[in-house]
């Protein structure tokens, strides 16, 4: 889906829900007034929606919204309640008799739970230390590759682009075992060592590398779509002025691609922060490198009944993506509609 095209990225009036009008596969919105304000006339698309807008429809939507929100609310409320309250009554009773505090967060961050030697703090630090480089690396490298494929024509560039494009079909499960072996044992061809074994234990490098590798196909594809649409005149003018490709990339391509870069960056950050599979495989479960998701998956089993701690830990891990999500929802949706869904 091609909403990453420059012309379909509206800087001005974006609907309040952050969905850019027209950022839809295949079709464009033709000027329509129809966001039917409260009580107002319902644009031209009205009839379709009108059929579904009755008190019953509103009740359904509100019920769904409540249903969709309650589980997270329960998590938040429970994480703020004292231990004895959590085990003796449901969290909903606390809405009537609130007795909230941050004690659980202190416990879970610094003391750990039963059987845990450390709190969650190191894991939270790891999540951030993994996510930021694992977003920056693929972003920059993919932008470079996308520029080369779009604007530095050479023999075979189409073949390279198609290969990158096709690699999107490979589930990362297919790469885990060989890649883990490569990181642990190096690469050898007979007795010839192609890549030596490097001791990367206790380092973030394997996780960064793995995320960067797995992000490449989608990142190159998405950024290529955008960068290829940049105005040709601008590029040609720069060449005439004697600018090198490196100069053009830095001073024209990167600044103009900011919306696409932002979309991908948010996507990649959320993806890495929320990832379990890659982290579990390449970081193991130690406080030195494992992120929050890995630790929480462990605690989900071992902390069994300690819901006051588990909920606080879970909330700590979801608060960062929620902040990113709510503050940058517009870019997130834009990226989503551009097809940045990976697995």
């Amino acid at each position, binding site marked *: 889906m091609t909403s990453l095209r420059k012309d379909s990225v509206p800087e001005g009036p974006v609907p309040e829900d952050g969905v850019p009008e027209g950022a839809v596969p295949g*079709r464009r919105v033709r000027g329509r007034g129809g966001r039917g304000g409260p009580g107002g006339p319902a644009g031209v698309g009205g009839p379709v929606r009108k059929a579904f807008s009755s008190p019953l429809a509103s009740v359904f939507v509100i019920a769904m919204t409540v249903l969709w929100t309650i589980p997270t609310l329960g998590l938040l409320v429970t994480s703020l309640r004292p231990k004895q309250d959590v085990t003796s009554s449901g969290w909903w009773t606390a809405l009537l008799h609130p007795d909230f505090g941050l004690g659980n967060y202190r416990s879970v961050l610094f003391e750990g739970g039963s059987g845990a030697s450390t709190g969650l703090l190191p894991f939270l630090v790891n999540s951030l230390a993994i996510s930021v*480089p694992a977003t920056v690396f693929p972003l920059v490298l993919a*932008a*470079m590759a996308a520029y080369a494929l779009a604007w530095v024509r050479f023999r075979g560039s189409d073949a390279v682009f198609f290969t990158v494009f096709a690699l999107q079909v490979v589930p990362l499960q297919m790469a885990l075992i060989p890649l883990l072996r490569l990181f642990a044992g190096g690469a050898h061809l007979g007795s010839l060592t192609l890549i030596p074994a490097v001791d990367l234990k206790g380092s973030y490098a394997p996780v960064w590398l793995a995320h960067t590798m797995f992000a490449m196909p989608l990142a190159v594809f998405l950024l290529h779509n955008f960068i290829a649409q940049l105005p040709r005149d601008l590029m040609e003018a720069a060449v005439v002025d004697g600018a090198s490709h490196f100069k053009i990339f830095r001073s024209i391509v990167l600044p103009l691609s900011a919306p696409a870069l932002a979309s991908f960056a948010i996507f990649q950050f959320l993806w890495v922060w929320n990832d379990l599979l890659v982290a579990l495989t390449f970081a193991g479960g130690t406080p030195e490198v494992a992120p929050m998701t890995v630790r*929480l998956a462990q605690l989900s089993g071992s902390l069994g009944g300690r819901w006051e701690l588990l909920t606080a830990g879970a909330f700590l891990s979801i608060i960062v993506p929620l902040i990113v999500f709510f503050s940058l929802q517009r870019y997130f949706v834009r990226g989503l*509609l551009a097809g940045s869904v990976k697995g």
Partner: protein
Amino acid sequence: MSVSGSASPVAALAGAASPVAALADGRLAGGAWGDAAVKFGNTFGAVAGFLGILLVVFLVAGRARGRLARPLAVGVFLGPAVLLLAVGLVVPLVRTVYLSLQNDDGSRFVGGENFGWALTTDSVQEVLLNTLLWLVVAPLVATGLGLVLALLVDRMRGQAVYKSLIFMPMAISLVGASIIFKFVYESRGPGQPQIGLLSRLAVAVGWDDPPNWLLSQPLNTFLLMAVLVWVQTGFAMVVLSAAIKAIPDEVVEAARLDGASGLRLFWYVTVPMIRTTVMVVLTTVMIITLKAFDIVRTMTGGNFGTQVLANEMYSQSFVQFNTGRGSALAVILFLAVLPLVAYNIVQLRKEREVR
């Protein structure tokens, strides 16, 4: 370069914040804050080093003129990405296929034995059956609910709030979502107060002794699917809502003049116009469903008859170290995903050509 401007302040800020905090809270956990400072320092160093090296390479390579300039540019721009893809995806892809034809410690070629094992062993058959069930139910429910919501929400006052709240789970990790729902499904013995919402609701409607939900087969598999539906419905809603808004006015107008309205308008105009998008959403959720192992792993660990392919692949490969079998399961997963992704890509191409 301009990217460094956006990336490094984040790391720099993080690096600067932790020593301050270390002073403030030194008594409580001095070691932890010290560690954090070191880790952020390393991370910041890695990002800065990465961007610094690139900048130097750019400056040096940018000086090249003449016939060498173009090949050099191609090499510098494309080299890292191609290398990463080759080492990280292409070679592993071939190796995994090769490993799937060998026995579990990789010492003997066994042909299709691992695939035979996967297709004939009872426990794995159950896994494949569960996976199929997930593949059918979860995407259909998520897409269906998303479509209904997309149709209904647009006319409502304060629709942005509803949309945001339903879309929100998309930002939460599947591990986080699993813990959220594990708490909803929490079940306790009779006589104890129920603190799980589902159990409490069951009691409220007169079911005095509700079962331990996550242990009751086959109900538990559907309860796990609910987590994925919870996460993916917002995605379906947002994408489909955008597609509905993009239906050209003339089409709706013409249909209305012809006397179509209400459900008929929906069924004969809206649905055909957004059919492609519906299919893309459906297949996308299917792909996510196939690959997701986090939910099963976090909620039941694959026990109690809830195991799915992606988690079994992980267990075989990295818990039991049965490399051959794990690789065979990875290949099966790949073959299952392949037609779905291929379909999506073809659709994408078509739409691009239409433009």
